[in-house]
């Protein structure tokens, strides 16, 4: 046990010294202000146009309803819009503003948009070379000549990776909150958000809808984002074991993640695509109550798919790593 802890400590410090985490923080510090600025511009431009948020919301509902009447828009977009219109209507009927500008709201929206690409990308910055760099750097021989079983070494690396995934997610949320708060104010933790919308065909079932505080929503969203980020991390971990070069493992994973976000937008009629892990990454759609990328996907289904992929990836990683011949 002590020796395992020592291994984890060794790996953690190694990643830290590679300055991977510092790069991630720098990227966040550079990008989040850009998003905050864009959001501020949107808020400013709509401010003069409408008397109050209710008028703006009414107009949004009317505009989206109009888009629905066109025959030319694809069926999936229609479904998405129907869900949006009915949700906005629900907010309006209960006199709750779904768009109050504050740092918590911004962070939630940011996480929602980041879960598909941005967060996987940051996870890959750590995960892609955690094994392959040992190989390309030649240090793997030193690592394996220690009097420790191979699987223990790999397990230490896996634990290290999950620790960094947690750190990255919390840092992302924290940076987003702290930076956007400068502009939008740091409040909004207790503002209500409605969850529990269920889409039945083209009708929104609102029987299960209840209000929760925005802070709780953020925590739940972070939890779901964590699950999908862990899946990406574990699969990248496997690729890093299988592929010798860091660049190749990074490119493989990027291709998988990007193709997932493309597929999610266009594969709604290819039903078996829902068993791919990359289509299931955006778990926050279930929290928002918007229609999933492919019909028939539910929170439980997506979690199960991601879990199966993760377990398989872990299995392959250990099986390969413990048997692999380490050549020069």
């Amino acid at each position, binding site marked *: 046990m002590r020796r395992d802890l020592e291994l984890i400590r060794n790996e953690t*410090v190694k990643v830290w010294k590679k300055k991977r985490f510092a790069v991630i923080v720098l990227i966040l510090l550079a990008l989040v202000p850009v998003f905050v600025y864009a959001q501020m511009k949107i808020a400013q431009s709509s401010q003069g146009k409408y*008397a109050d948020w209710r*008028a703006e919301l009414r107009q949004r509902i*009317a505009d989206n309803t109009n888009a629905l009447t066109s025959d030319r828009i694809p069926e999936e977009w229609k479904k998405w819009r129907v869900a949006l219109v009915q949700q906005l209507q629900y907010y309006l009927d209960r*006199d709750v503003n779904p768009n109050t500008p504050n740092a918590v709201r911004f962070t939630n929206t940011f996480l929602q948009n980041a879960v598909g690409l941005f967060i996987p990308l940051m996870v890959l910055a750590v995960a892609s070379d955690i094994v392959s760099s040992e190989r390309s750097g030649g240090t793997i021989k030193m690592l394996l000549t220690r009097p420790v079983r191979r699987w223990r070494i790999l397990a230490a690396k896996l634990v290290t990776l999950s*620790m960094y995934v947690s750190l990255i997610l919390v840092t992302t949320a924290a940076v987003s909150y702290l930076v956007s708060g400068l502009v939008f104010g740091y409040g909004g933790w207790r503002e209500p958000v409605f*969850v529990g919308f269920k889409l039945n065909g083209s009708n929104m079932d609102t029987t299960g809808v209840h209000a929760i505080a925005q802070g709780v929503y953020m*925590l739940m969203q972070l*939890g779901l984002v964590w699950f999908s980020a862990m899946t990406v991390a574990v699969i990248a971990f496997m690729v890093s074991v299988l592929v010798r070069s860091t660049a190749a493992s990074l490119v493989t994973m990027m291709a998988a993640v990007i193709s997932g976000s493309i597929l999610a937008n266009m594969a709604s009629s290819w039903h078996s695509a829902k068993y791919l892990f990359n289509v299931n990454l955006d778990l926050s759609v279930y929290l928002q109550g918007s229609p999933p990328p492919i019909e028939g996907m539910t929170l439980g289904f997506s979690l199960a798919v991601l879990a199966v992929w993760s377990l398989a990836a872990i299995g392959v990683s250990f099986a390969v790593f413990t048997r692999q011949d380490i050549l020069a």
Partner: protein
Amino acid sequence: MRGKKDRLWPVLGTVCLLCTALLLLGFGWALKDAWAPSGGLALPSPTQATPQPGGEWTSLPEIKAIAIGDSLTRGVGDVAGKGYVADSLDELSKSMGKPVKLSGNLAVSGLEAAKLNELLDGKAMRDAVAGANLVLLTIGGNDLFRSSQQSGGSIAEGGGIDPELAKRLLPTTEAHLKAVMTKLRAINPSAKIAYVALYNPFYELAQLRPAIASILADWNGYAVKLAEADGNIVVVPTADLFEAQSARYLSSDHFHPNGAGYARIAIRVAQALD
């Protein structure tokens, strides 16, 4: 060097563990909320918007307008997407010498009178109408002309229109119009309502002219009757605008006005209101 390294691990390790615990808590909470939700936050009950103070427009510093109805109010057919609403309000503002502000265009293309009647029960519409001094309205065209399209006929050629069916639809549609007007009045007792009457989009088809003319006369006449009974509704006639040179003022779908057609409607609306 050695000392620094020693401090890094305890701090980093603890922070990472705490982050993981936090995320696991969030994950568990999300699952619980999705599968076994509890009651949720209690919210204050929503407030109803109070109707705008009535009285003469001359005494108001600013006129708030709302546009509701179907594709004509939405501006379908106008390449610029403007329709008649913005222009007529600009014109009105000029002639009255005070700002006329549009607080929203809630028109939905394809809307029928019965559906509008239903929408007026919703909070969105009620609040919007209650907060306005002026309501611009178009409705009925879809009920009478689109519903009487026979299957297979193309509306662009007008070939599919069945005037007999449109005639049969008149009584129910008129009842819906009356219900809409009554509801608008109930929500806002003092707002002025401008109803833009129907025109014959198939004027080019000579064989349909007499039949549609009689339908339009019936419908528009009914609207005028409603307006007279109310006293604060104006009916803006448009049928004559699209007769002499209908091709010039109708858009490529041969049904909705084009930009120039909407500009003519806008002038009429402004004149009728001032």
